[in-house]
């Protein structure tokens, strides 16, 4: 059932790769593109990342900024057919395992590890342990709110933690903090994306076009290397509670796709393999739903139309259709 509508709500939260959205909202870029397609787009900031995804899953929002893993685990596993419209970046060091006073990953054995359970941090930990032949059984995971990571690190009984930027940067300033493993070693596995409701997208191509347009215009501005780019990045840094230098530091740990071509190229790589790591982690932690019998329970449709996993239950899709339009200047 086609349902064309005019008002769209998209949630975003503070994270290095998503700050451009806030900037676009504050500086009229969102309005410009919305006007162009004669729709209204409201970008709403969530203090709590997960709440935004929940809202999206419950149907209150048309799109949300999320990682591929959370998109699969929450809306898709919740039966909401979701599409990754744009991958803005992948984490290239933003997520890190930090040990206090120890500098080797192996030293984590037997420790209590503070992290946001079932989040990307958890995934990083699982992948890291897997790489050195350990498993989660070798550590004790303590669920800790992301807002309190820095405070938590300051307490004596916290000796190991997994978290993301800007907390990582802040914590690594401590003398005894060692980054023993980070997402540089998992290139492309943690994708920060704009996820939209597939049905909404199909019914409202204008929405998809406008969002894509907003993103790449902001990206162009940001990567310009001129004074305007500096000013934009400074504003983004400010909004995330740090300054230009701090923001640049975070960007350095982020592989941004400043151009549509970058994103298209990424999807043509080993995306199928990457998604399987994520599916496996989610399955192992029961996050694909109680009915899931294997990591392949939910099918993922790649940009070229091939399906990874169960073709009868495709609930997460990658699309480059609109990025291609942007690349061709057809938006």
């Amino acid at each position, binding site marked *: 059932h086609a349902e064309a509508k005019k008002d769209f709500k998209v*949630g975003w939260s503070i994270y290095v790769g998503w700050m451009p959205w806030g900037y676009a909202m*504050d500086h009229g870029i969102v309005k410009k593109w919305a006007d162009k397609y004669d729709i209204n787009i409201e970008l*709403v*900031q*969530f*203090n*709590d990342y997960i*709440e*935004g995804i*929940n*809202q999206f899953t*419950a149907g*209150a929002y048309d799109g949300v900024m999320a990682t591929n893993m959370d998109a699969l685990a929450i809306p898709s596993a919740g039966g909401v057919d979701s599409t990754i419209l744009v991958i803005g970046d992948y984490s290239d060091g933003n997520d890190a395992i930090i040990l206090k006073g120890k500098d080797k990953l192996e030293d984590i054995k037997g420790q209590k590890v503070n992290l946001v359970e079932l989040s990307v941090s958890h995934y990083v930990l699982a992948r890291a342990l897997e790489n050195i032949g350990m498993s989660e059984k070798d550590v004790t995971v303590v669920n800790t709110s*992301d*807002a*309190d*990571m*820095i*405070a938590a690190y*300051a307490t004596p009984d916290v000796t190991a933690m997994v978290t993301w930027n*800007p*907390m990582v940067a*802040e914590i690594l*300033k401590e003398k005894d903090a060692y980054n023993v493993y980070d997402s540089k070693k998992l290139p492309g596995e943690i994708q920060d994306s704009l996820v939209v409701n597939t049905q909404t997208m199909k019914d409202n191509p204008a929405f998809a076009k406008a969002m894509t347009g907003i993103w790449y215009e902001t990206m162009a501005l940001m990567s310009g290397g001129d004074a305007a780019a500096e000013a934009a990045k400074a*504003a983004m840094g*400010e*909004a995330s*509670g*740090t300054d230009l230098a701090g923001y640049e530091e975070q960007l350095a740990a982020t592989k941004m796709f400043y151009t549509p071509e970058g994103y298209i190229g990424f999807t043509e790589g080993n995306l199928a393999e990457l998604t399987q790591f994520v599916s496996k982690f989610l399955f192992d932690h029961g996050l694909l739903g109680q009915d899931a019998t294997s990591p392949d329970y939910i099918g993922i449709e790649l940009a070229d139309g091939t399906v990874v996993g169960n073709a009868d239950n495709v609930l997460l899709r990658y699309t480059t259709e609109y990025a291609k339009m942007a690349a061709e200047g057809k938006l």
Partner: protein
Amino acid sequence: MRRLINRQPDVVVRFGLMLIPFIAVVIAYMIASEARLSANPNDKLLPGWSTIAAAIERMAFLPDQRTGSYLLLQDTISSLTRLGIGVAVATLIGGIFGVLQGLIPYFRATFSAFTGVLSMIPPLAVLPILFIVFGLGELAKVVLVAVGIAPFIIRDLALRTEEIPHEEIIKAQTLGASTWQIILRIVVPQMLPRLIDGVRLSLGAAWLFLIAAEAIASDSGLGYRIFLMRRYLAMDVILPYVAWITLLAFTLDFALRLFQRIAFRWMYRGN
């Protein structure tokens, strides 16, 4: 030697004694802060006075570079608006349901068990549900505050209403009053000051819910700022904000008490 219970400090001594714990806290803070700062001059946990003063100036007296607004002012307005609307809604609901539940046996039979159970549900636990049902806008925050305190206000007011001497209700009936007239002229006027008591008692919880709601979804507000700053452990901002919230809470409580005294003179006249 008189017994300790019979010894009354005079005004001057009383004032001095009152200051002691406050001064003790300040001194303890200074010592701890000094110690930490001498170990690590960049320590953020217990910032020195000058750092705090700078933060206060930045938040309260200088316009924000990004938005040009005064952050403390803007946060305060946001939070107080939400709190005000939430508390007002809860007061209205609490007033109506409380009076009816306390006065009318059929109403009480229908709702008292239900509000009893409602008031036992910890609102923080249903926070996720509330957000999902009411969205993440201003509405959800207001609803959380209202939902959080309304059951308490209802139950408190229903109890107070039941405490109205049965004699008064009988007397009103012998004067020919209908149920509606009793509510309007006898019960509601006597319950308004009690309602204020109930609201005062639940203000603490209201602040709590507001802060919790702002922590999850917001782009301004005192709770939002504290949780945002928590990510960076910017205690130089958090501490003044906590002090400010405390002051606001105190002022609100005082204002309600004052209003009660002025608006309901009959309670305070005579003895």
